[in-house]
């Protein structure tokens, strides 16, 4: 082994050890127990792929996959779109730049649990700001249970995270700051408008960072639990049930750890597929410049 390779191995070692103990072993145990029948206090029995088949026959699990997929798509498109537009606006560095950036960031720095409570108040049928606003515009005695009415529960839960794309905006802003000013000057000399510069110059150069932000946004939907738990618990019925919520209920309410771990394997698989697809779509890692 060359001297250089030894250093590479030495520097990689802490990360490898950390990964092995925190993730790799956990992952092996997770996958291993997904083929068993196991709950707290019971002995473990091998059951083959029974859990995998049972889950696919469980309506709540199918609904949780569908909801998670919809949220991944929404987060990868609308959420990213909002972040990109906001970044392009902030990049103009007008007088409102700092204030707008800070205000946009606030929902991202509040804990999800607190944010959940906040939205419960905002959408409260009696004293919530949304209903009060509608009453203010003349709809007397208006009262709508936004989170618990089956017609609005999904969209209301979605609104608790979809518009808040400050992280996406900040990532893109950071990348934009590294672009050579000469490129913009050249576009200006060629007579490009601000809109044309954004579409034909800025955005193509932001492809990789938008792809990265999309991966982050999409995979965040695979972890969404606390805000759903606080606002709807996955209800009414199973209308806002996602995979993490399903896993939580299966493990901690039903004490069925092996089935929860099987759902965890499906969740990881969905995450990997999402990441690969997004990488393909954005052609990440390849440079057009």
């Amino acid at each position, binding site marked *: 082994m060359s001297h250089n390779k030894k250093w590479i191995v030495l520097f990689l070692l802490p990360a490898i050890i950390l990964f092995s103990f*925190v*993730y790799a*072993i*956990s*992952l092996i*145990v*997770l996958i291993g*127990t997904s083929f068993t029948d*196991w*709950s*707290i*206090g*019971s002995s473990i029995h091998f059951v083959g792929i029974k859990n995998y088949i049972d889950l696919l026959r469980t309506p709540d699990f199918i609904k949780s996959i569908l909801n998670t997929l919809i949220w991944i798509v929404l987060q990868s498109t609308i959420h990213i779109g909002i972040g990109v537009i906001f970044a392009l606006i902030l990049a103009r560095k007008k007088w409102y730049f700092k204030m707008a950036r800070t205000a946009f960031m606030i929902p991202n720095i509040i804990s999800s649990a607190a944010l959940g409570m906040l939205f*419960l108040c905002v959408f*409260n*049928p*009696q*004293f919530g700001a949304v209903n009060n606003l509608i009453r203010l515009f003349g709809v007397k005695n208006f*009262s709508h*249970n936004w*989170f*618990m*009415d*089956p017609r609005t529960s999904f969209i209301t839960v979605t609104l608790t995270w979809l518009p808040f794309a400050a992280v996406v905006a900040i990532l893109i802003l950071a990348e934009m700051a590294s672009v050579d000013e000469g490129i913009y000057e050249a576009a200006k000399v060629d007579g490009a408008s601000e809109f044309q510069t954004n579409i034909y110059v800025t955005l193509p150069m932001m492809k990789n960072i938008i792809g990265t932000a999309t991966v982050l946004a999409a995979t965040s939907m*695979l*972890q969404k*639990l606390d805000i759903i738990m606080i*606002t*709807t*618990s*996955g*209800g*009414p*019925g*199973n209308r806002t*049930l996602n995979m*993490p919520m399903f*896993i*939580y*209920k299966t*493990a*901690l*309410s*039903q*004490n*069925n*750890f092996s089935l*929860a*771990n099987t759902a*965890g*394997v499906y*969740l*990881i698989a969905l995450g990997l597929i999402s990441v690969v697809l997004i990488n393909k779509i954005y052609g990440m890692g390849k440079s057009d410049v």
Partner: protein
Amino acid sequence: MKKIVGKLIAASLIASTAMFTVAGCGKGAEPKTEGASAETAATDTAKHTEADTASGEKVKIYYPTYRVGAHASAAAEKEILDEFNKQFGDKIELVVEELPSDQAYVEKMKVLAASNDLPDIVEGKNGIIDLAIQNGQAADLLSYVEKDSAYKAEIGEDAIKASMRDGKLYNIPYASQLIGYFYNKDLFANAGIQPAKTWDEFMSNCEKLKAKGIVPLALMTGENAWTTNLILASIIGTDGEEGNKFMNTKNSDSYENSSVIKGLTMIQKMLKEYTTSDAIGAIYANAANNFLQENTAIIANGPWMTPDFSDPEKSKPGLDKKVGVALFPEDGIVSQFEVGFMVCTKDQAKMDAALTFLKFRTGAYAQKVMLEKGGALPLTANIEMSEEYKSENPLIGDLIKLGGAAKYKYSNLDNTAFSSVIDTFAVNYPELALGSLTPEDMAKKMTEAAAKNK
């Protein structure tokens, strides 16, 4: 090895779902003496305490609690823990971990139970006791209690009998529960009604209140649907002998019976017509606030709520003078013992210290503090209320009197149903209220949820 595998498995679940950020309870690695029992611990208590004191080392025991912050029993808990530290602080170091809510407590204990890592003293509520027994951490306390006649008298035979499982005593209750419903006398007078004697009269009262523009019931369907489920349990528990037997049966595997369907049918009507517009999805704080602000005439809840009636930060001024307490129709009352505490250690020195704490936490002194500061009823009549307390809290005295006159006594659903069944209420009550789920469908869903429990 088995323990290590168990811990790894539990850790994998957490890692895979990224659900929690659960810090360990701080218990850490410790030598464990397999096979240690409460009996041997009781025998050796004096020996160990002397040895520990002689060596100058305190025995450290871990005690998580959710009675903090704005919790109704936070003041009582603080007083009890302060007094314990005053009396035993030179021998026992009580490490208290504060958790922000009942739910956070239950979730954390369940995760720790999965890795056989429960703290030394744990409250067994919401199915935690089942997990602690299944994983072998809960110690049998019967011989310890039997040997200490004074302590046994403080707990009382009834509480011990109610807590026995297969001839073993894994938990010691700290309080008893008597739950009727509170009503606003002024609003009742306005509608010209009295507490109902039958469920038909109860519904008729609701109609009369509604006709007067008063919202009758403070209900909620979020969390564990507490105030709503107390009424449901009461409809079932007062539905003849069959219904009463059902509400006193633990872990039923079927809810498809006439009493439950009758209860769900009435709850459906209550959710549709007799409650606030925010009841669907509401948490306890919403329901309580609606009663405390006189937006509703009735709330089903336990005596721990009574201090709130005179709290100017929570209630309208003078509410405490307007509130009365009543039995549920058909002379029913929720009557049970709190699950209470378990000892979950096998290390001899820790066991001794934990038993000392358990005795203190569930004994006469703590019961009195819990009554006077937290509104929790004591386990036996031996704990007398001071005259000052009686005059300041007439509702508690009234409730105890009513409890003695009740025809039907039963547990609540939290105490009898699997946690998987309790989970169904938050997601299915909204559908029931909207009519997209019939009472029969909901009973079926509860049965299915019970079948999922492992």
